[in-house]
């Protein structure tokens, strides 16, 4: 699926997400931060977007950005959203910080016809190197120390592939990025950001 979105922004992951959507889609962005992704998708694809965010400052930033935002905690599930009521539900670089990880992915598949999940690949060689050297990895994509990290459920591409297989989830497409560039060779070793387009089987 290609929209040939012309992007001038530096966020390659945003551009990939845009290319996985259709013009005018209804999109739910979970953990939407300041609403930047939805604003970008609104400008490029005229999507009907809603964000979900729990942090006060981010909710205020969304209001400032003119993004629809619903303040709630994703850990409580998506009970306020009907089955299959969105074309796509996005969870961008938030999966690893969720406590109810399994539940949120299943909830996303319930609410969205398709699901986009992106997360930092823990199997990235720089992470492996730091662990081999005897330390918890700290990097651009994992910028926290072990004691202050919000990331409680880190995984590798292989782990997530297995998760999908075990939960009857179809992987429609997968892209792997490092420093904004797509990686096709040995992605679980050379890729730092994993991007999945999913659907319920």
């Amino acid at each position, binding site marked *: 699926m290609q929209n040939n979105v012309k992007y001038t922004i530096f966020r390659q992951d945003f551009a990939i997400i845009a290319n996985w959507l259709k013009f005018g889609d209804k999109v739910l962005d979970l953990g939407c931060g300041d609403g930047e992704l939805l604003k970008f998708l609104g400008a490029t694809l005229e999507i009907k977007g*809603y964000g979900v965010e729990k942090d006060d400052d981010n*909710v205020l930033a*969304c*209001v*400032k950005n003119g993004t629809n*935002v*619903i303040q*709630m905690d994703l850990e409580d599930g998506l009970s306020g959203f009907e089955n299959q009521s969105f074309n796509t539900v996005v969870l961008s670089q938030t999966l690893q910080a969720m406590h109810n990880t399994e539940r949120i992915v299943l909830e996303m598949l319930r609410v969205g016809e398709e699901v986009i999940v992106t997360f930092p690949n823990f199997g990235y060689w720089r992470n492996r190197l730091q662990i081999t050297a005897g330390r918890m990895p700290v990097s651009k994509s994992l910028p926290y120390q072990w004691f202050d990290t919000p990331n409680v459920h880190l995984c590798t591409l292989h782990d997530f592939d297995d998760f999908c297989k075990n939960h009857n989830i179809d992987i429609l497409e997968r892209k792997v990025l490092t420093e904004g560039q797509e990686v096709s060779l040995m992605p679980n070793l050379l890729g730092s950001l994993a991007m999945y387009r999913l659907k319920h089987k």
Partner: protein
Amino acid sequence: MSENNSVGIVAPKTAHFSEPLALKGGGVLPQFDLVYETYGTLNADKSNAVLICHALSGHHHVAGKHHESDKYAGWWDNMIGPNKPLDTNKFFVIGLNNIGGCHGSTGPISINPATSQPWGSAFPIITVEDWVNSQARLMDRLGISQLAAVIGGSLGGMQALQWTIAFPGRVRYALVIASAPNLTAQNMAFNEVARQAIITDPEFHGGDYYAHGVVPRRGLRIARMLGHITYLSDDVMGEKFGRKLKDGIKYSFDVEFEMESYLRYQGDKFAGEFDANTYLRMTRALDYYDPALTFGGDLSKALSQTKAKFLVVSFTSDWRFSPARSREIVKALLDNESTVSYAEVTAAHGHDAFLMPDKHYHAILQTYLGSIEVGDAK
């Protein structure tokens, strides 16, 4: 708040309507007055008008003072004024007293033209729908065909919601704060106890107490005391009063705890200035409002014709109009793919929080209202 962001000295106006108003309950108000105040200036294309809908005990005096010597400013003065969240440099703000009220608009204490006596018990039961219809008449009178926004908290939020249902083309933004799409049984139960306190007061005289030169003070006082308990959270009452004593334990039924002193003070103050018949009708309007009822209980269907953009706000410690009730409104709007944002403000003050100058709450409103486009001033 300093005085330089006050709307200053304001004066109420009265609009008389001689066309009858058909009421949802079946009756007709042959004519009526609405008392209102305005702040700011209506712009050239009349695109900057914002209507404030009041809650149970509110009225038209929303901001500013009537006299320099007034002890208190209007009931939502922290929200409205130059550079405040609802900025009167930009918006033309209208506050009114609803019909059935006791602050100047036609209500039970008004003279019934048919009898030349106060309406009393004969004053009809008024609904949220009736209020919104009467408010639309006032907008017609002011030449405002479309409101930039309608804003209300609690019962006022129900009116804001009703505006979007009854007049979808006449409201661009609706701010529904600390409200609900209808009352729960528990919420209505508080209203029923409050009404029973009033109705069983020997000085109620079936609602025609004016003729007897008395008012059902005791009933109204108890009703208000009960209300105040439900407007605060357990935490705030604990923090404000705890088990603090005024003097010491005296083993009596006098005022011994600070909390009792507060409730009695609030009850007495209210009973001295509010009309019991109005209180009965306001609580009934709350009970009856249920826009989903005619749609088989389906709120999404009830809101399917709305065109406004919505901001829904709730407060975490509000148990009388809990966040869960606001989320029902949000869900119905999402079902309709409406433009909606929802803020759940962390606040300790219970239902009263919507009247408090919480920093985050005000920032959300200031930002949201700031983004509303209005025409030029001239």
